[in-house]
């Protein structure tokens, strides 16, 4: 504390030597900080790199060789792993894609509609509904799990993708409504008023004014829906019965169940395949992702 004060006074006097010493100390601190941060980065990321590298190693070398620099590369794990569940892995990738696509379309339509109403329209019970909507964000799904299962069973939807897609069209992911409400409220309100004065109805104001302005919020929603649906394990575990319907997440579990056969290479290879779309979405959508978390606290 005293040295800092000293620095202020000496700087004012203009002691050049002191200033240089001070600068050197700051550089040392900065270098130390970067060394620490890079070390932590390596610790954080090492398991992922190890996974990727191991997926190219012959089965016997995976656990004997820690190094991520390896001399022997092979694609065998990918070839074997791809078909080791009896079906080609493209089946599971396809199933995951259907689930992701359905969920994204459902969330975009239903959540944006609800968000527009909550943010822009005045109707009876709005505040009550809004409060209820906020509460459902925090509601553990376990409370509705069993009855939902019974509903889908009675509808004859077990073993199909419908239990995992239809609710998305009914805005059950309240997180995204909240995200969009926050976004619409931050838009300049004059735009909406101008549209209404120009004679546009609510439907036109929604479709032609609000939706184009909401693109960043819609992108954030789409990206998070992608990531969550792709990684979702619990839902498919409960509702899907037969291997040909499995998404990637449940198909991967098959490797763990069959671990006695210990095809670690194949397991690693398919793990990499399953993470690849997430990496790509992360790389492309980083800007929206980080802003989305910062404003709403969603994962």
């Amino acid at each position, binding site marked *: 504390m005293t040295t800092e004060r000293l620095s202020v006074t000496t700087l004012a006097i203009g002691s050049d030597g002191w200033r240089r010493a001070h600068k050197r100390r700051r550089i040392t601190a900065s270098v130390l900080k970067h060394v620490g941060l890079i070390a932590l980065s390596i610790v954080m990321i090492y398991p992922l790199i190890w996974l990727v590298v191991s997926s190219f190693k012959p089965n016997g070398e995976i656990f004997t060789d820690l190094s991520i620099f390896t001399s022997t590369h092979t694609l065998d794990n990918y070839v074997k792993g791809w078909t080791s569940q009896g079906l080609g892995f493209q089946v599971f990738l396809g199933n995951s894609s259907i689930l992701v696509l359905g969920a994204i379309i459902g969330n975009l339509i239903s959540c944006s509609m609800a968000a527009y109403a909550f943010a822009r329209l005045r109707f009876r019970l709005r505040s009550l509904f809004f409060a209820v909507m906020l509460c459902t964000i925090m509601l553990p799904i376990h409370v509705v799990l069993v009855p939902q299962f019974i509903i889908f069973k009675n509808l004859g939807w077990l073993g199909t993708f419908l239990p995992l897609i239809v609710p998305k069209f009914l805005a059950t992911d309240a997180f995204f409504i909240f995200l969009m409400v926050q976004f619409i409220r931050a838009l300049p309100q004059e735009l909406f008023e101008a549209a209404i004065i120009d004679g546009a109805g609510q*439907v036109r104001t929604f479709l032609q004014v609000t939706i184009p302005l909401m693109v960043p919020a819609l992108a954030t929603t789409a990206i998070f829906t992608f990531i969550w649906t792709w990684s979702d394990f619990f839902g498919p575990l409960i509702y899907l019965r037969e291997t040909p319907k499995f998404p990637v997440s449940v198909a991967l579990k098959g490797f763990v169940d069959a671990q006695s056969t210990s095809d*670690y290479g194949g397991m690693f290879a398919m793990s990499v395949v399953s993470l690849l779309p997430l990496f790509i979405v992360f790389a492309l959508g980083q800007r929206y992702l980080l802003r989305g978390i910062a404003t709403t606290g969603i994962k």
Partner: protein
Amino acid sequence: MSSLGELRTLALNARKGGVKLKNRFPDNKAGYAFIAPWLVGILVFTIGPMLYSLYLAFTNYNLLQPPHWAGTANFVQMFHDPRLWNSLKVTLIYVGIGVPLQLALALALAILLDRGMRGLGFYRSVFYLPSLLGGSVAVAILWTQVFGKNGLLNSFLAIFGIHNAPGWVSDPNFALGTLIVLHIWTFGSPMVIFLAGLRQVPDMYYEAAQMDGAGAARRFFSITFPLLTPIIFFNLVLQVIFAFQSFTQAYIVSGGTGGPSDSTMFFTLYLYQQAFTQLHMGYASAMAWFLLLIIGGLTALNFWLSRFWVFYDD
């Protein structure tokens, strides 16, 4: 803008002048039309099921025969079920250790990653990536291999001559610990929220403090921390709620059993087993309501405690 303002004043004057406005809710029809999907969803998939699940909690139900009223039997049974209390203990340890450590690390790194720092974007991405992947089955599988008997960690320890390290995920003393490590590993998303919060702190506070001769520690405790408490609180509440519902990691690491010796038997995993392997749907519903009470209670406790440490600027 000004003309709109005039319009508004005109409308207000008209109201004062006794012209009765027709409708306090001019968008009633449109409003209901736009929330219709949500309204159907919340009735069919949330409120309806909640009521039914409350009813089921007082029944015995195995999906095959109709629910059979059992009074408070499920709750009495819960009280005498050692596996349930164990699963609650496991979950509380996981949340109680994992969440504070995760948030502390997130906060420390957010503060370390100053504004305008070189490589900020790189560090942020690297630290954030694990929290994006953390919930996936592939990462849970990776974890079982990293912490296995012959896994990455033990191969690493062997370099230092430590050859009798346990198989972390297969040892009841350590299995839960590995899941906590996995949780801490995902500190990136709260860190991003902290970074956004730090950006809101006005520079002049730090400049003034520096002028007054405040050191780094003093600046942290007198400026950064108090101004950040609302965000710390927000992260804490959300992370506790989320962590309490963790499932995938424990399921994969234990092969769905919650083992070894129930040491990774999360409350949600036990609930899943009761519902979908034992077909004790009534008991599972009672457990779900117990879970809701616990999470609600913890959230309320968090809010109550916040009065003593959360500082609101305005």
